[in-house]
């Protein structure tokens, strides 16, 4: 079981991580989440340009036995998706916080950032 939590990231209680840089939020799933899901074999990504609301389903991550919905941690417009995952979904298992990112969102409502968990709060729930 692997449970790495990075101190420079924000988190949700549904195990997404968020890296905020200016107006952009990069989103992925945490080390804990990938470890729980085990072998990830398929990722369905949203279309670039799509407007999303916080809490909406944005991606599907499938392991051999399970289908998991990933929810938008923050509202905004999808500006980039990690196309590499379509060919090599296992990257999420290998590098959940780096190579295995899912999408980038242009943040539309900065106040939502305050609702995200910091690393200490996330550690408490895993």
């Amino acid at each position: 079981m692997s449970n790495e939590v990075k101190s420079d990231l924000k988190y949700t209680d549904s195990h997404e991580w968020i890296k905020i840089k200016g107006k952009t939020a990069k989103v992925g799933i945490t080390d804990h989440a990938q470890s729980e899901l085990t072998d990830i074999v398929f990722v369905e990504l949203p279309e670039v340009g799509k407007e999303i609301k916080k809490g909406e389903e944005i991606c599907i991550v499938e392991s051999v036995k399970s289908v998991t919905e990933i929810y938008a941690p923050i509202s905004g417009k999808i500006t980039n998706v990690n196309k590499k995952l379509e060919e090599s979904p296992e990257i999420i298992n290998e590098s959940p916080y780096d190579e295995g990112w899912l999408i980038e969102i242009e943040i539309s409502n900065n106040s939502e950032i305050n609702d995200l968990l910091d690393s200490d709060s996330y550690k408490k729930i895993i």
Partner: protein
Amino acid sequence: MVKRSPLFNLQKTLGARFTEFAGFEMPIQYSSIKEEHLTVRKTVGIFDVSHMSNVWITGPGAEKLISLTTLEDASKIENNKSQYTAILREDGTVIDDTIFMHLEDKYMMIPNAGADEIVTNWLNEKAKEHNIDALAENVSDDYVILAIQGPKSRDAIQKLTKTDIKTVGFFGCQYINLAGVDCIISHTGYTGELGFELQITPPKKAEDVFKKILEAGKDYGIRPIGLGARDTLRLEKGFILAGNEFKGGRTPLEAVMSYFINWDHDFIGKDELLKQKEKGDYERLTSMICIEKGIPRQDCEIKKDGKKIGVVTSGTMSPCLNSGIAMGYVHPDYREKESIVEIMIRDKSVKAKVVRPPIVPKDWASQN
């Protein structure tokens, strides 16, 4: 009450993650489903399948009772042979698929997990109704079942017994002393690979056997295997999982089990099967490989030119093929080999090719 295998603690120390299946808390995986799957295809793995049931059928009418209640004429199954078959309701639908072993003057039946009471009661009711002098006894709690599967399975367990395992032919079964324990061995399995299953009683003897087999298989890279890989292994071979493929009431004709129907004897459900066979317009279980990206799952609709022609009963990512694969019931007009169908996965249509099982061929490991 959720039951646990007597091997639960050992499995925990081996790193198992557990899942509930048919009332049992069983290992779903130890390391990774993909790795475990490929280990069985290439070398050897050991499974605890104690969730499966054990029913002894005894008495002078045992053979007659099995013949009445299954697709098989039990008089054709010699001593030390086992047979895959199914038990039907009067309407021809399957109660359970099962293997029975002919062991001298009695038979051991292996119904599916959670089907022990239903099958035992059904057999005893039918014995009474038809005045057959036989008794079905549910002994599921008295047995641990281990499956050793993979091309190196025979080599691994041969080290633990004086009996020449080569003499146990395909679907053969017999009493054996293995790893110092008297048990029943059968040349059977659910993976499509060379494999054996052991029935061990009392359950407390099983832990030592499990450990000794792990040790004996060490040189071949043996791994303990969970139910996750058990499911992907069977699906790649087109083997039926009762809870999926018989859900809602399906006949053996629909499940494409014609090979296992012995029409030369009378059995419960036969009349309805004959009627269905005559009509011929029933849906049939069909295997498919996705030719576009996507993983079919249970209950996904199968379409042709936008029209619904069937439904998926089992689907997964095939660890051998790295593509989505599925089994499902399809209208007879749309299941020709090589024809293309569409599987609806979350409102997206994913193209799939109809194939005949096994989805993954027997010689896959030697070519990959």
